[in-house]
């Protein structure tokens, strides 16, 4: 399948939704005219550098800042005592499991440090270089303590991350559906395995950064560099600084990627605005890459003991197990999302009637954890799909056939999932034909009813296919607002509470508004990412910008047209229903004279006409009642060199049904980009800590991510078969389905290739080092029966 090519101009004879339009954003990025946070310069700007703990655990004996204060250009050095009067702990925004409030982080360490990279002071100077010079002169005296450096350490509780003598369990719960005990007792087949997913981070190419300015006369604080959940962060920051929320503006500039980690509330989000207010001068902080790797959220580290119960024919009767999730040293904004979602998504797209999962959220002396694209799903899909392949092998059933027998069918929709997440109500998969996506993937790889058989290539490498099916939630609530305003020239300004990190929402929201108002796409100017644009906003996470933000734009746009029509109808003494809007002009349904245009009403509004203002400036809100669920299948084909353990991904295909693609070009880009990110993580990206809690992968030379020569044969097929009934556009999210089943599919392919050598794969990453170790171990033990 050839990749889509952008359509330079919209086809006016068709709806804008569905057209692969080139992005309006692109020109500024291609010419260097974009403005990222480090490009933002203000007069009198100061530069901040954060001093971080070099130890993973210990008591802060003293912090000597006098030498640093005496360095050239230094304006201030802040330690805990300087911020204690107003500093609050970083809040839990999501997944607030019981007990979490004992493990929150203050913006600067008070008397203990709990991970390498924990902020202990902040230096502010007239240039970044001078601030860095001075930061080296801050003497941090720490009495090192015992280190909880792994999940195993945390469970063993030989040391405590927080209060001495306590175990390292931040929270623990069990969820279930059906009657797992009876199902397992009666099952003909059971198998239990322990799986592990490794610690990773999202690694956006732009590091985090902030610029803050406080105007004491106006009593106003502006913070540039915001992202993701700007309104939530504003509320917290305003309260911490004891300012009215309306006096604080969080502004998003161009953003160099997020994938979940950027825009959460971090210690710096307090420290930088605090310093700007204290000093009466704007302050900039730009994270460097080493700092990013220890200071920005990590994710994905989960160990899962999982047991499956089946009939002899491969009907899955039950799934049960225990999810151990590492939260790092503190519970931060994402709370327990990662382990909770890993448990919730264990049953995936299969009907599995009986489930029971214990979730244990653990603390370690390492960088705190947050969400990374497909949080919990990437891990859960790997655990389950790997176990399904093992079960299929034991039962002598083809792995595709085993899945076919258990996938939820279209006649079972909506499908009740029960309550598998303790802080959310019962959920339902909305729509879909899960077996169809599997068949589409098989068709695309020429597999017929099963995957092509494993073999050897001409170089003696072991080749095999692997498959993984998934379901993915999107469109999280609670709501989103959109504000539309007609400008005097007839163009329409669209404001959204969503933020954007490179996806292309300026283009996509214009396409949605275009269809709702019957105006060409180029008549819309989309603004996002300021807390002043809409009354309330929620942001961009959980693949929601188009589902929720787009629906809000659709509602507001239709309301705007209706109000303008009503005003013009009233002026002409007509019933509103008698007035139609065609291409920006309002006229009597039966034709005839033009009663008015958007441009005319926009000009009247600009001139101060109250009726015109009310008609042409509209805000509306879309409330999420239920989430949307995409689904699909990934297929991977690999060749494994049994001598070097090197794996080549010969092909990776991601098939996903997203209901309706607003811009197929951008959807395809999301799918391919996500798939490569997922493959990168499956083979390369690994945050490695030593027993002292030191990060060993602190540069991009050590923390490796995919390069252009790594995974060249990645394909995506987007289906638009089953729309969601839960929003006016029928859309589902498009940002995460490409990543969530990558590790699962490719691990199944590698495991199938290596199965003849007696290797059983249960851990990520599939690095040559780990695979070589598995191969050596297999060679050392007798081969399995053929």
């Amino acid at each position, binding site marked *: 399948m050839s990749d889509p090519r952008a359509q330079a101009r919209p086809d006016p004879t068709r709806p804008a939704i569905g057209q692969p339009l080139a992005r309006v954003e692109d020109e500024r990025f291609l*010419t260097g005219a974009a403005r990222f946070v480090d490009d933002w310069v203000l007069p009198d700007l100061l530069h901040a550098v954060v001093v971080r703990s070099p130890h993973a655990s210990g008591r802060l004996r003293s912090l000597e800042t006098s030498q640093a204060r005496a360095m050239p250009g230094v304006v201030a050095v802040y330690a805990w005592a300087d911020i204690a009067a107003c500093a609050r702990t970083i809040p839990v925004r999501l997944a607030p499991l019981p007990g979490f409030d004992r493990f929150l982080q203050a913006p600067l360490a008070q008397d203990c440090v709990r991970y390498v990279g924990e902020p202990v002071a902040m230096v502010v100077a007239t240039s970044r270089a001078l601030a860095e010079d001075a930061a080296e002169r801050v003497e941090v005296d720490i009495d090192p303590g015992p280190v909880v450096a792994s999940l195993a350490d945390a469970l063993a509780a030989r040391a405590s991350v927080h209060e001495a003598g306590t175990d390292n369990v931040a929270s623990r719960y069990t969820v279930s559906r059906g009657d797992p005990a009876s199902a397992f007792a009666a099952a003909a087949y059971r198998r239990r395995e322990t799986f592990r997913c490794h610690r990773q981070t999202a690694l956006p190419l732009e590091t985090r950064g902030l610029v803050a300015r406080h105007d004491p006369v106006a009593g106003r604080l502006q913070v540039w560099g915001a992202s993701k959940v700007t309104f939530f962060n504003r509320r917290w920051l305003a309260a911490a600084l004891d300012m009215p929320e309306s006096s604080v503006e969080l502004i998003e500039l161009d953003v160099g990627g997020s*994938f979940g980690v950027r825009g959460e509330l971090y210690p710096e989000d307090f420290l930088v605005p605090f310093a700007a207010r204290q000093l009466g001068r704007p302050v900039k902080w730009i994270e460097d890459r080493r700092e990013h790797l220890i200071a920005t959220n990590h994710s994905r580290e989960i160990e899962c003991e999982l047991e499956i119960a089946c009939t002899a024919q491969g009907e899955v009767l039950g799934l049960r197990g225990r999810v151990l999730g590492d939260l790092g040293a503190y519970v931060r904004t994402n709370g327990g999302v990662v382990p909770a979602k890993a448990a919730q998504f264990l049953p995936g797209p299969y009907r599995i009637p009986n489930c029971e999962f214990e979730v244990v959220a653990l603390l370690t002396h390492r960088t705190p954890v947050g969400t990374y694209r497909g949080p919990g799903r990437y891990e859960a899909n790997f655990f389950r799909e790997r176990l399904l392949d093992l079960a299929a092998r034991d039962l002598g059933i083809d792995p595709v056939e085993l899945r076919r027998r258990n996938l939820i069918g279209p006649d079972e929709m909506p499908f009740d999932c029960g309550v598998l997440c303790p802080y959310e109500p019962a959920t339902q998969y909305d729509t879909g034909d899960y077996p169809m996506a599997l068949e589409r993937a098989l068709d695309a790889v020429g597999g017929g009813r099963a995957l092509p058989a494993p073999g050897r290539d001409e170089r003696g490498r072991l080749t095999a296919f692997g498959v993984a099916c998934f379901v993915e939630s999107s469109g999280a609530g609670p709501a989103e607002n959109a504000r539309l305003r007609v400008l005097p020239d007839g163009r329409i300004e669209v404001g959204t509470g969503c933020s954007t990190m490179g996806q292309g929402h300026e283009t996509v929201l214009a396409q949605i508004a275009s269809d709702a108002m019957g105006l060409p796409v180029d008549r819309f100017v989309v603004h996002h990412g300021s807390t002043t644009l809409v009354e309330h906003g929620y942001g961009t996470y959980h693949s929601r910008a188009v589902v929720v933000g787009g629906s809000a734009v659709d509602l507001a746009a239709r309301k705007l047209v209706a109000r303008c029509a009503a005003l013009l109808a009233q002026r002409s003494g007509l019933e509103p229903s008698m007035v139609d809007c065609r291409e920006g002009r309002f006229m009597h349904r039966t034709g005839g004279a033009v009663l008015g245009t958007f441009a005319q009403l926009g000009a009247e509004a600009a001139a101060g006409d109250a009726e015109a203002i009310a008609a042409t400036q509209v805000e509306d809100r879309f409330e999420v009642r239920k989430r949307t669920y995409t689904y699909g299948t990934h297929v991977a084909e690999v060749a494994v060199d049994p001598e070097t353990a090197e794996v080549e991904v010969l092909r990776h295909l991601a098939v996903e049904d997203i209901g309706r693609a607003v811009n197929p070009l951008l959807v395809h880009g999301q799918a391919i980009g996500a798939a490569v990110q997922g493959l990168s993580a499956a083979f390369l990206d690994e945050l490695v800590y030593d027993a002292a809690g030191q990060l060993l992968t602190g540069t991009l030379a050590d923390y490796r991510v995919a390069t252009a020569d790594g995974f060249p044969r990645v394909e995506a097929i987007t289906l638009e078969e089953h729309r969601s009934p839960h929003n006016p556009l029928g859309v589902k999210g498009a940002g995460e389905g490409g990543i969530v089943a990558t590790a699962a599919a490719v691990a199944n392919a590698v495991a199938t290739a290596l199965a003849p050598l007696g290797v059983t794969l249960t851990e990520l990453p599939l690095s040559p080092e780990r695979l070589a170790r598995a191969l050596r171990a297999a060679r050392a033990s007798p081969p399995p029966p053929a």
Partner: protein
Amino acid sequence: MSLPAARPIRLRVNGETVEGQVEPRLTLADFLREHLRLTGTHLGCEHGVCGACTVLVDGRSVRGCLMLALQADGAEVVTIEGIAARCPVRGEAVARGEATLSILQESFRDLHALQCGFCTPGMVATAHALLAENPAPSAEEVRLGISGNLCRCTGYVPIVEAILDAAQRLREGA
């Protein structure tokens, strides 16, 4: 602690002569960004791995974070802001203000070879140098040629296609 005194440099940037007083420790990337306000050159790692800061120095792709501004004394530097004017096909139109994008930049847009846009200037600079050296590269040669530039959004597949597309269009003189 006293820092070594600033020293004068003189170079050409995007076709214009530029003079500056620079501290010896100042990198070329910081000179471009902070002294000249050419902020299209981005810093993604500051240790020479990610390639976001790639610019053209005397026609070759160079990491702006690994070269000192002093080392660029006398050099001809081209950044993303000036690259379109160096397009063999569109260059003159761009210089006259009648076009904004080079063929290569158009291919990036048409094949959706950028999302967040942070790696894009470095990627375009690297590809520009690659095509100047090898106007008819294979897909494999393109992949290796840009393998020193990280992109976290696109998965590289559309970037490779865009460079191949641009190579073909440039060869056809379109």
